């Protein structure tokens, strides 16, 4: 399953870069995330609770492994999420480009879906992934605007996340 798109945020690439890799921001913006911890400079682990309609939200353990990191330009994520309904696995590439005063984020993910979700949920996979992507982007956009509005260096997360 290919999930791709682009979104323009106000703010510099550096500012957006920091937000994208801030585990607290990920926890707040990725739909259903209950916990997200940076366990290593290039690795995140956490828990998500995802449900749609009548489908009871089920817990997924998630890990995200970063690779090919070139700040503030691009990075690749190896995503692995597993839960009661099955799993999703794949790679996502994120690219940031300056666009005037803002930043254009382009992303492309190739995700494998397996287990029960694939077996009986194929009808909804496209819609659910579009929905979660949109929700994630909207939350991220709110977060960006919130940070810009406060413009207070103290509001940044304690772990600015500079990578080797």
């Amino acid at each position, binding site marked *: 399953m290919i999930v791709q798109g682009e979104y323009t945020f106000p703010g510099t690439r550096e500012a957006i870069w920091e937000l994208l890799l801030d585990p607290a921001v990920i926890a707040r913006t990725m739909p259903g995330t209950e916990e997200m911890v940076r366990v290593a400079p290039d690795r995140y682990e956490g828990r998500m609770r995802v449900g749609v309609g009548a489908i009871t939200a089920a817990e997924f353990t998630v890990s995200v492994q970063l690779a090919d990191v070139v700040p503030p330009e691009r990075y690749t994520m190896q995503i692995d999420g597993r839960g*009661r309904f*099955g*799993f999703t*696995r794949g790679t996502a590439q994120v690219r940031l480009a300056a666009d005037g005063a803002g930043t254009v984020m382009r992303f492309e993910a190739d995700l*494998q*879906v*397996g*287990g*029960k979700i*694939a*077996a*009986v949920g*194929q*009808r909804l996979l496209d819609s659910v992934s579009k929905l979660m992507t949109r929700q994630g982007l909207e939350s991220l956009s709110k977060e960006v605007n919130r940070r810009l509005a406060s413009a207070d260096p103290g509001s940044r997360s304690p772990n600015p996340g500079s990578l080797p």
Partner: protein
Amino acid sequence: MSARWLGERVPRLEDTKLLTGRALFTDDVDLPGMLHAAFLRSDDAHGVLRSVDVEAARRRPGVVAVWTAADLGEYWKPGPALVPPPPIAGLVFNSATQVPLAREKVRHVGEPLALVVAVSRYVAEDALDDIVVDVEPLLAVTDLEAALAPGAPRVHEALGGNVAARARQSKGDYAAARGRAHKVIARRFRYDRGAAAAIENRGVVAAWDAKTEELTVWDTTQAPIPIRNGLAAMLGLGESQVRVVAPFIGGGFGPKIMMFYPEEVLIPWAAMRLGRPVKWIEDRQENFYATTQERLQIHDAELAVAKDGTILGVKDRFLFDTGAYDPYGLTIPINSQCTLLGPYAVPNYDSEFTAVFTNRPIVTPVRGAGRQHGVFVMERLLDLAAKELGMDRVEIRRRNFLPPDAFPHDHQILFQDFAPLTYDSGDYGPAMDRAVDAIGYERFLREEQPALRRAGRHVGLGIVSYIEGTGIGPYEGARVTIEPSGSVRVATGVGTQGQGHFTTFAQLVSDVLGMDPSKVQVITGDTREFGWGTGTFASRGAVVAGNAVHEAAIRVRKKVLKLASEVLGVDAGELFLECGSVHVKGAPERSLRLGDLARKANPLRGGVAPGTEPGLEATAYFGPERGNAANGVHAMIVEVDPETCEVRIRRYVVVHDCGTVINPTVVEGQVQGGVAMGIGNAFYEQLVWDENGQLMNASFMDYLLPTALDVPAVEMRHTVTPSPLNPLGAKGVGEAGAIPAAAAFAQAVEDALEGEIEVLEIPLSPNRLFDLLGSRSRP
């Protein structure tokens, strides 16, 4: 002997029981203390199995036992290789068979990882959620060509690659024929199939009686006797200690002849270990992964023809997806290879296939068993050749039919029964004539189609012919017994999954013994009743078991006449059998009821002459020297809506030749049912396996079976060319309806779209037609 019942439309004797809910199916078996099983199945298509932690499951109240591969100890072993490959020169064959529970590696989604036994299926499924599995995923092998590329991940590490087999059969000299050809038609064909989707899923109930030391297994198998023999060997029991009962079964269609499925092997073992009966009933979702299916073949085929449409030769190179294991050998691709030749004279043939291991469930025969693929390739090549030569598509077929005096015709290549593919009898011209007449071919092409086209409608006709190899050996047996009550009991080793054996076998006996079929009780599928035989497959029930039943009845008749002539004091030639009694010709008051004769044949005291057998009972076996060749023609008219790409089938005609017909209603039912499956294969059903080996449609929401609204009533005609290979002259019919339907559908849709696209793949769907029409695919 009368011929009153042969060919008669006797209403099915088993239907009252079935329709009033009094038939025993495996899930009806309910024993005191019975426990229920559920299997944890892999979500991953390919991976290293690091651990399966069942501790929490074991602690759940209501759970009696949980086993993983490690817990099976010595009992864990790969299943037997069931079907050895035929002795083809230069054959490459790598055997890899399924295991009861995965160990070290998982090789397909749905592969069993653990067995839970609990007080109910509800609790057992709760316990499945308690189990924690650690799998390190590996790249899945799914694309057939990529699987053969160097560096591809390997389904079985011990093998050098993913080649399960490679086999080449040839006759004559295709290269020379090609050189002489007026035209060579070459295309790539993709033919996919799907699940059998029987209305009843699989199930196994096992009970061990420690006092009598007997194991009873109810199993939805098409092969109860081989299952009994195999289980006895695996469990260290004598064959007589094991009874396997295949009760009423809601459809087999092939996957239930796959043997020694993990569940079949483990449930009896669990019952013996626990000392309590254990039941496992497969649910529909499991069926998509846990029961075998058929899948894709990719053919690069070419046809060399002369200017007048005569076939000079065929060359075919194809890939066959065998799944993660190949216990069933090469039955399917050999069938494809052989069935491609069809009813045609093909002087030069060069066919080679490669069977490929993939990370998907095992492929074993499903109604048609690979014949579909061969028929599709040949019929499409002929259609394309006809188009290029400007010939009528019926004419090109007629020109190449084997003539009626060509039989027996040896094609010089090996069939699935290891014997040379030899057609016993056939007369293909009349079958085509009848189909052409029934579908109104000439009138449709000259008048109806042009008129409808002028009105803006897109209608098309498809007409194809085919051969079906049926009735193969090795053998079956039957015992016929006249009971003191006067009714007759027939026992045979085959099972029944809806073919009407209870009626057709009774008809065969009725003619021989002069009684009404309702007085003949037929028992199938119980190893305690009859312990020799192989099973129901390859359209062989009527041919092989039927002839055994017939022969056994004839032997009983001889005994009846001998004893009756002694008792009545007349020559056997003066006696006849009618209405359940023996009568003296011309002396209506002198008769003996068969039941009374049976009592006389079993004295409690006194002496008998040496060599006398008690009762009126006989057992007979029948084994044909080789399979026979049934044939037929399918024709259909379709209409395509070019806006929505929907296709509606307007008419469907089948002309079928299965030799001697025992019960026309049963034959028609088989054909109608087969056509429904063929239509499903052509336009509705497809198992959508993604590139990672995940099944995207494991339910009937998304795996589409055609309904009564999608399948027309088949207009049926028969021709009869009896088989010289068995006394009844019968040929099989079980799979006939399913085999050529997709080939006819492809031709009809192409015709409806006036050749705008070439249909080189199956299945089609409105979505797929939309794609093809968009890109106007042409070579």
